């Protein structure tokens, strides 16, 4: 994952003391929080993430993708699932919020070809706006396959259309688009694509990997896992990865003669984006 879509200002990660500038709730339980974060906005690349420091302490930080980037402002999309996302969703204008970032290696947009399928499940849509924008900007055709439980949870479709992506939807309950999984639509219509980039819950990503194999396409998957440090220090967020992957950390065999063909890679450090065919799930 060497070349990002749009070469951003190369800057090492830092703690950014940001201030909330705006907040909207496009659907119940989904909150988009905008913050002023000039350095972060200047340096973040598609698919990288930040760690949000909990305003009250007492909990570990939360990994969040970066949704929009415009000028000095970046926004975060929160789906409230537990105490940390609940607390962050309560932030309002003027509140301060510390963010660590940019972290991890994002999507390698240059390797995705000219007709890219972006696949997003639920909050997995958050890190998809930046690659959609960047891919369109370099002339690629972009289709966003976007699935959620129900129509209301499919947020901001117009925003993706505005950056030039075609949006194909699916809902578990059939209230919008295909009635069923978005990966079914991908399997049916996806053969024409040059490559896939996906983000969403693990079961969806496994299904994307299967479909990609069937369609003989390469797929970049942004994995979800519970993080503690988010910076590669604790080895809490691993996934088994081909030893031959360019992203694989160097690691000796466990014992002489006992050669394993995979290593544990840190999702926060070597990822969060991996090539589907290199994962040993």
């Amino acid at each position, binding site marked *: 994952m060497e070349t990002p879509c749009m070469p951003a200002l190369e800057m*090492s990660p830092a703690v950014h003391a940001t201030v909330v500038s705006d907040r909207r709730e496009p659907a119940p339980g989904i909150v988009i929080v905008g913050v002023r974060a000039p350095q972060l906005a200047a340096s973040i690349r598609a698919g990288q993430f930040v760690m949000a420091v909990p305003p009250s*302490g007492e*909990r570990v930080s939360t990994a969040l993708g970066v949704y929009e980037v415009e000028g000095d402002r970046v926004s975060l999309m929160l789906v409230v699932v537990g105490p940390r996302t609940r607390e962050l969703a309560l932030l309002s204008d003027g509140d301060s919020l510390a963010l660590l970032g940019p972290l991890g290696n994002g999507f390698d947009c240059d390797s995705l070809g000219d007709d890219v399928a972006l696949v997003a499940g639920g909050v997995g849509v958050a890190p998809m706006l930046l690659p959609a924008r960047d891919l369109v900007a370099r002339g690629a055709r972009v289709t966003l396959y976007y699935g959620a439980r129900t129509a209301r949870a499919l947020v901001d479709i117009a925003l993706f259309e505005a950056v030039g992506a075609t949006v194909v939807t699916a809902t578990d309950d059939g209230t919008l688009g295909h009635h069923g999984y978005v990966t079914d639509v991908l399997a049916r219509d996806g053969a024409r694509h040059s490559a896939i980039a996906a983000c969403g819950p693990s079961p969806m990503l496994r299904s994307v990997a299967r479909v990609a194999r069937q369609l003989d396409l390469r797929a970049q998957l942004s994995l979800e896992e519970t993080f503690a*440090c988010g910076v590669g220090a*604790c*080895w809490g967020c691993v996934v088994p990865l081909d030893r031959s992957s360019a992203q694989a950390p160097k690691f*000796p065999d466990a014992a002489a003669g006992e050669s394993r063909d995979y290593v544990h890679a840190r999702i926060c450090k070597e990822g969060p984006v991996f090539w589907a065919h290199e994962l040993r799930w």
Partner: protein
Amino acid sequence: MVDTQPSLATNLGGLLLSAPTLMGSGCYGSGEEYAPFIDLARIGGVVLKSVTRLPRLGNDAPRLVPVASGLLNAIGLQNPGIDSYLANDVAKFADRPCAIVGSVAGFAIEDFGDVTERLAARAEIDAIEINISCPNVAHEGETFACDPKLAERATQAARARTKKPLIVKLSPNVTDIASIARVVEAAGADALAVVNTVRGMSIDVDRQAPKLGNVTGGLSGAAIRPIAVLAVWEVARAVRIPILGQGGIETARDALEFVLAGATAISVGTGNFTDPRAPITIADGIRAYLAARGCASIEEIVGAANPGYLARR
């Protein structure tokens, strides 16, 4: 009020620290991972991730579960093993502008001796901490830290092989931590780290299965703070060697609870995951606390709330 800034310098069993704030083993990598976020010159030191004789791939994912005011982890001591560690990693620690404590874990008594000797021989390493919260494969899987005889022998094995300051890390998962502490002191430890994680587990009620790949894990973070403060309090009354307090420290006031209970220095683990600036705000907060009370040095308040500790010094 004192005119000059109070001193945070302290001596942990021969390990001289410019600040009483160390970073807990396994929670801070080698320091380098956090260097973009804080100035490492302002922390006392880093306790490196534990290293073992052989490489270890570690446990299956998931390895982390967030729980109320804390974290469950089961990393399984993933590490490249001492050979690779000495060859590829240790030289990098020379850059760190703070004390570097090597951490040694083992599954047999000999491991503690052999790995300690090889690691301590390196100039980059200022002191050794042994992590004895592992099962002894030769002894029905009994945990070294939970059996006085095993804790003693692991300590002796490491002690025999280095003259550098030796810190032994105790487990809270015992009926009487003070009795283990006394045995480890007698076996030659220079300081005690109190405490490691508390055993726990969490179940996914949707999947009807344990959440951790390893089923059980270690609980850390604010949730265990009262357990850890008591452990420090009890150990401080039982031994004469200094204590490195840890367990749920996030703020200066948390850290001061440990110091007042009898800890000479403290270690921040999970607190770094809450906010990597914690070590700096903790050191600043301790300094302000000392200044407000007219104390010239942190050493003046060690054990100040623990009469049983004061009586022994």
